[in-house]
């Protein structure tokens, strides 16, 4: 019995180590391009690590039992009549409870972090209008409108979303968070782009025939370039 | 070998009763959904044109009908077929009166808060509509237990049918007890 437990523990440790190394080494998500992406990714990494450990433990236990304790030919005996063991059962209730509560609290902290208005720089407000199947961006501050989303780097942005027909969802994978645009109400999303480059807004809520193609370019540029673009648009 | 049916210890009345209660529970949630919807869509707003006196009147009618249904059931339990018939007939009459009241309100409602263009109209017609549908099925149930075929069963002391239909009728009434204040009183 002790022998089996030790072997399982070693195998599980090895498998978790392998899984964790794999999960953290490989870059699954597109590169971060907003200040809000960092905390989310770190939270997700930790979730992956814990998930890998839990998964490894259970899988090793499962496969090990199936292989090592399999019934041999000619052995018709039953296993030991164990009906349960209260301390163990309490333990495997409490430990997951603690883990998930920890993640909920951590999640709440990160959520607060990425949704609050950040820093002393005034936010750039952009009104985003989603319709089947196009995006439109208005900049009240500059009184311009555009079909591409151009943003100055490192300035907090407040996106005010609304939809004219059905539900759509605003998503730039590099910025991480999504937010639905719902007809009849305004929703908001805060991001602070921190890497210049070209990205795409993708509609992430099923909205009909051309849902797959409801895209718009996003350009994060230097503030001066942004000011110049805004002036040109006005003309 | 023929197996005697009664070898299984089966308490039929208890089984039937539990089944009925579970069904009513489930059906009750239908009204829970609709009542919640009313507050979610409209808060406690209510247009001034809602006909409160008429609402109150038909509520009383429906409650009275429940009283007669109860008397009918008791009579059935004692095997008093004549009294049973009289009471259930009154119940059906009051139920029909209630429906007539709803029809008048619908006519008024279409005028003041049409369901196609006001949120209150939408919740009003949905709630009263679903309830009226229940009243209609309840009336059908009550008519069924008055049919001649049923009397034999009553005389032989089996009044489960009456009990079930009357319970259902009470349920329809209780549902209205919640609907009336939500539609006519709150604001």
């Amino acid at each position, binding site marked *: 019995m002790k022998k089996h437990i030790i072997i399982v523990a070693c195998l599980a440790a090895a498998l978790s180590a392998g899984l964790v190394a794999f999960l953290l080494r490989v870059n699954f998500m597109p590169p971060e391009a907003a200040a809000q992406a960092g905390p989310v990714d770190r939270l997700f990494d930790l979730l992956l690590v814990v998930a890998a450990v839990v998964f490894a433990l259970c899988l090793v236990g499962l496969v090990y039992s199936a292989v090592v304790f399999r019934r041999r030919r000619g052995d018709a005996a039953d296993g030991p*009549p*164990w009906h349960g063991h209260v301390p163990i059962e309490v333990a495997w209730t409490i430990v997951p409870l603690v883990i998930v509560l920890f993640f909920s609290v951590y999640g709440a902290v990160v959520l607060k972090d990425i949704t609050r208005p950040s820093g002393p720089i005034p936010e750039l407000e952009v009104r985003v209008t989603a319709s089947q199947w196009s995006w439109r961006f208005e900049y009240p501050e500059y009184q311009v409108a555009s079909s591409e989303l151009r943003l100055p780097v490192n300035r907090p942005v407040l996106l005010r979303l609304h939809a004219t027909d059905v539900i759509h969802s605003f998503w730039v994978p590099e910025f991480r968070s999504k937010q639905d645009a719902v007809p009849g109400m305004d929703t908001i999303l805060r991001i602070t782009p921190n890497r210049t480059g070209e990205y795409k807004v993708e509609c992430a809520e099923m909205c009909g025939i051309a849902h797959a193609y409801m895209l718009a370019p996003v350009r994060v540029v230097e503030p001066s370039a942004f000011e110049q673009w805004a002036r040109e648009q006005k003309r | 070998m023929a197996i005697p049916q009664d070898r299984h210890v089966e308490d039929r009345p208890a089984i039937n009763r539990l089944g009925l209660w579970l069904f009513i529970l489930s059906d009750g949630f239908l009204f829970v959904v609709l009542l919640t919807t009313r507050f979610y869509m409209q808060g406690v707003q209510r247009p001034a044109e809602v006909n409160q006196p008429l609402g109150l009147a038909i509520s009383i009618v429906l409650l009275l009908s429940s009283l007669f249904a109860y008397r009918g059931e008791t009579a059935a339990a004692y095997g008093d077929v004549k009294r049973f018939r009289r009471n259930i007939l009154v119940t059906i009459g009051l139920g029909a009166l209630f429906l007539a009241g709803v029809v008048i309100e619908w006519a008024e409602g279409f005028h003041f808060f049409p369901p*196609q263009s006001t949120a209150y109209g939408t919740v009003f017609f949905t709630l009263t509509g679903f309830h009226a549908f229940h009243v209609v099925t309840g009336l059908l149930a009550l008519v069924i237990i008055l049919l001649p075929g049923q009397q034999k069963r009553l005389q032989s002391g089996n009044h489960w049918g009456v009990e079930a239909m009357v319970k259902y009728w009470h349920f329809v009434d209780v549902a209205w007890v919640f609907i009336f204040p939500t539609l006519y009183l709150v604001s």
Partner: protein
Amino acid sequence: MSIVSLGIVRGLMSGALGAGLATGLTMLARSALGAPAWDAGQVTTIAVFVGVFFYLGGLGAFNYWLRWIAGRPDPEHASPPRPHWARYFSFDTNHKTIGVQYMVTSLLVIIIAGILQLIDRLETAQPGMQFLSTNTYNTLMSVHGISMLAAVLIGIAGMMNYVLPLMVGAKDMAFPRLNALSYWIVPPAVILLLVSLPTGGFDTGWTGYPPLSVKAPLGMQFMILAFYIVGWSSILGGVNFLTTIFKMRAPGMSLFRMPIFVWAVVATSVLQIIFTQFVGIAFLMVLLQRLLGLTYFDPNTGKVLLFQHLFWFYSHPAVYIFVLPGLGVISEVLPVFSRKPLFGYKAVAISSLGIAGGGALVWGHHMFAAGVESWLVVPFMFTTSLVAVPTGVKIFSWLATMWMGKIWLQTPMLFAISAIAVFLIGGITGVPQGIVPVDLYLTDTYWIVGHFHATLFGGFVFPAMAAIYFWFPKVTGRLMGERLGKLHWGLMTAGFLTTYMPMFWLGLNGMRRRVADYDPAMGLGPGNVVVTVGGFLIALSMLLFFINLTVSLRRGAPAPANPWGAHTLEWQVSSPPPEENFAAPPKVVGPPYGYGAPTAVHAVLSPEDDAGRKQG
């Protein structure tokens, strides 16, 4: 015997007649009121309701009730034992017939829904549109989703119907006629789901969010009607199961002597009778808005998010409706094939109720990005996380059940083991989704698609396979082919991993769900090819399964009453069981999983039953 004497044939003919009549009358009434005679929505809706009613009448579903109304005798088990194939096509009230009917229907729907998505997978294997239009893609995808879920509801009803009365030692369900009715309203629903394809389909996904679903083509309406009907089947089934469990258990079967599967049915049925109303009404509201112009979800006068609240208030608990019976099957299979008692019986029993209760309070986690108030979001994160705990109790108890056992690797056990591993993948990937900031990235990507296929395969598909291999000898009196069964298992497990593991990778790389096409620049092509290949592997394994099923049905070795040496009651009667299960109520004298103690007994049969069993 003429074909017209089959209930189903008469039902369908009568249904068609009723629908035709209703169409004519509605059109007449409309023109009498001065409206144009034809309005596709209103006319077909009325035709559907009337048609279903007529169909049931033709089937003979109302005969008993009519007899009751007329005051004539109405025995509960009036169906004469007709032990040949025709009873499966008639209004038969025996729970064993009904169980088989449900299960076969479920498998048929799974084939149809699976093939629809395989077509879609051929399209999405490559970026760019190859041979479908985006609209067709969306429709096939949506019909795939809703039909699969309907198939799951039908499938669990099948397992529960066949096994439950046997397990509790009853001769049938509490309300056999209602039970038959619950089954027989399902075929029209399946037909309606298929009708939605040629009537324009619907491109909303299975969730059917308005306002999109209000604008969707006529197909949407058939989907709504179909789901509404399946919902009623589900509610009536739940009432029946609960009554059976609480009023018809054999003497001596206290609550904590019930097999775990019975506990799972309790939890499932409670969820069914309470929550199904919510989705029913939500869909009816969409229907009413479409047909009569009511304004529930109108952005100006209504509330768009109302639908999502109602829908998920059902549909989250529904995911536990889908899996709890399956998890119950795992709990049945494991002790038998590990030759050990179920570890922590009480905790496992109660965890089903815990999952059901907790699952009622988490619906908001599908709406994290939908624009609900932020003070609502965090509580939902906590409740969602908490559901992981009772589920974990189940998983750990299963592992402990296998630990140090004598594991007999027959096909049912192999499927149970796969089910645990696969469900674990699904659960473990569900937890990150429950954490709001992370879900805001994951939501509406293929990560979610991977998550729910893993939970559904682990909680329904694999357990259903385990159940079929496990109870097939009981149902048919023949053993199922072991060699082909193991091949089926291996291929299906491999197919599962090939299909769904890449989905997590795709999702993290930014692949949205419900897209017919994706940007070639994102490098998602290879991953999608793997997914498609995997889908066909699963289909191949299913083909093996059907071959195995049909061959074993004809030529399988005769099965003894208790081929697996199990203790629960259904194995104590002959295979297949007698028409009324038990000649007299058995006496339950001990716990259901007394393996390991040579003298442990769960139940004692009456002398007549015992004699019958020795012959059988």
